[in-house]
């Protein structure tokens, strides 16, 4: 293993994050606070509790997931797209680093960033609502797995994208709707039966549900199903990344 190589990529990517540390932190904190104000105050006045949890607390796992998913996609896709776009990718391609090492560097950095942001949002939410986390270990496990798998997906998008429009397309058209429809801000038991069934095809539902279970011990789908879903998703992403490097897809001519 070329550990120096991994470290170089990781540090380089983290430096990009810390250069814009203020934006990196202020914007998620601000948007989370706004969510609390809008959802918590406006909707919370109508829905006081969901299965024994105050609505304000209920949305915390969903909020964290929403940010972590978008941040992972954005950071990872931008991290690899940018060197492709400005041409500095030549150096990565000509260096003695393997595909695995490149992925560890880029995806590791992107996942770290979203993990940091997720933690910041969690801390922020403590100021608004009372939360006790029932299964801290599983909470962390779901969080880390989500950061890693969606950073992998972001990495794939970054390699696939040929323009900045394409780079934003998938998060905008696919992921954000899935997150909003994935029970981030409600329990699917509140939906009409037909929509409940449709929601079961939404992969994000399994993430949010599992994550929420780690907080409050309640879930829309069984925890095992959530774990299975996120593990399968990570495996599929890993498979695609492996194929990308094997074939040189959109990386080499």
């Amino acid at each position, binding site marked *: 293993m070329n550990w120096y190589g991994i470290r*170089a990529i990781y540090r380089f990517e983290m430096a990009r994050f810390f250069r814009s540390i203020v934006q990196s932190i202020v914007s998620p904190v601000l948007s989370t606070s706004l969510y609390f104000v809008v959802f918590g105050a406006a909707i919370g006045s109508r829905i006081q509790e969901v299965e024994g949890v105050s609505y304000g607390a209920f949305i915390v796992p969903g909020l964290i997931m929403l940010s972590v998913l978008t941040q992972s996609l954005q950071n990872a896709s931008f991290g690899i797209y940018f060197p492709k776009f400005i041409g500095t990718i030549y150096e990565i391609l000509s260096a003695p680093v393997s595909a695995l090492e490149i992925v560890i560097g880029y995806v590791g950095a992107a996942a770290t960033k979203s993990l940091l942001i997720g933690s910041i949002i969690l801390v922020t939410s403590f100021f608004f609502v009372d939360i006790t986390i029932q299964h801290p270990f599983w909470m962390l496990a779901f969080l880390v797995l989500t950061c890693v798998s969606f950073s992998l997906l972001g990495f794939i998008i970054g390699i696939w994208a040929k323009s900045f429009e394409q780079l934003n397309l998938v998060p905008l058209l696919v992921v954000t709707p899935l997150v909003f429809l994935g029970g981030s801000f409600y329990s699917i038991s509140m939906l009409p039966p037909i929509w409940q069934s449709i929601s079961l095809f939404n992969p994000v539902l399994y993430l949010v549900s599992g994550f929420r279970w780690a907080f409050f011990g309640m879930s829309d789908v069984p925890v095992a199903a959530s774990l299975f879903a996120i593990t399968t998703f990570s495996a599929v992403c890993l498979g695609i990344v492996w194929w990308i490097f094997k074939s040189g897809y959109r990386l080499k001519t």
Partner: protein
Amino acid sequence: MSAIVQVRDLQKTYDGGFEALKRVNLDIEEGEILALLGPNGAGKTTLISTICGITTPTSGSISVGGHDVIDDFRRARRLVGLVPQEINLEPFEFVMNTVRFSRGLFGKGRNDAYLEQILKDLSLWDKRGGRIAELSGGMKRRVLIAKALSHEPRVLFLDEPTAGVDVELRKDMWQLVERLRKDGVTIILTTHYIEEAEAIADRVGVINKGEILLIEDKAALMSRMGQKEMRIELTESIETVPESLGDYDLVRSNDGRVLTYAYQTTSTRTGITSLLKDLQAAGIGLRDVQTSQSSLEDIFVNLVKESAK
């Protein structure tokens, strides 16, 4: 001694179906400076990119230091530094950081003393804390060179290092190449400036349309391919070249005072002796005779012309 870079039957067809390299064979000896000379689109960058792992070969094999560039890419690539043709740098990065990054990427531990030396050699030391975006074009190219040297490569590829740079940087670059040669670094540079090849290379390869037309010691190349010209100044001007001298294809200057004779130094008979005899027989008096050797440029133009036929 086996070559440090070996290219065997290398062929590259791009996705569009364009054949950029046609069965290229090339041996680069350790410690030499090889200039690859060729017009735009000849395949120079493709060749370098394939050796460095940026482009995948369609067929053929390449090894660096005896290591196959695909099967044993780690060992092969550790030996190689690449200065690309395009200025590809992250504008918001800091000079020192980006050079450090390159060293780490190539698997070397931090060594700021060594990097300091490189930056000083390249007159970049004062700029080490500055952002890339603040540098001039020439300075950016120096940063690219510093990055390529950061991991102490044994083989350095310079892809058109002096295209569009000022005279000062070009001189600095040549000096740097000379220093690196003393350290035993093998250097391959591509250029379409013939003076550059002439000034610093040990060997010159000429590449056109994806084929290496020739590769030879610079001096040998120039003398083998060299055409010479003899300028004959006459004591009195002549109106026409006498018919008895018709075989020599002499060129008469406008004022009729100078005749020019072109000949190949490589042919067994240059024809000089008989020309001088025949001039005397025709009653033409000579004031002075000068000869001049054709430059690499003429050789190059001839070769490329021939290959176009």
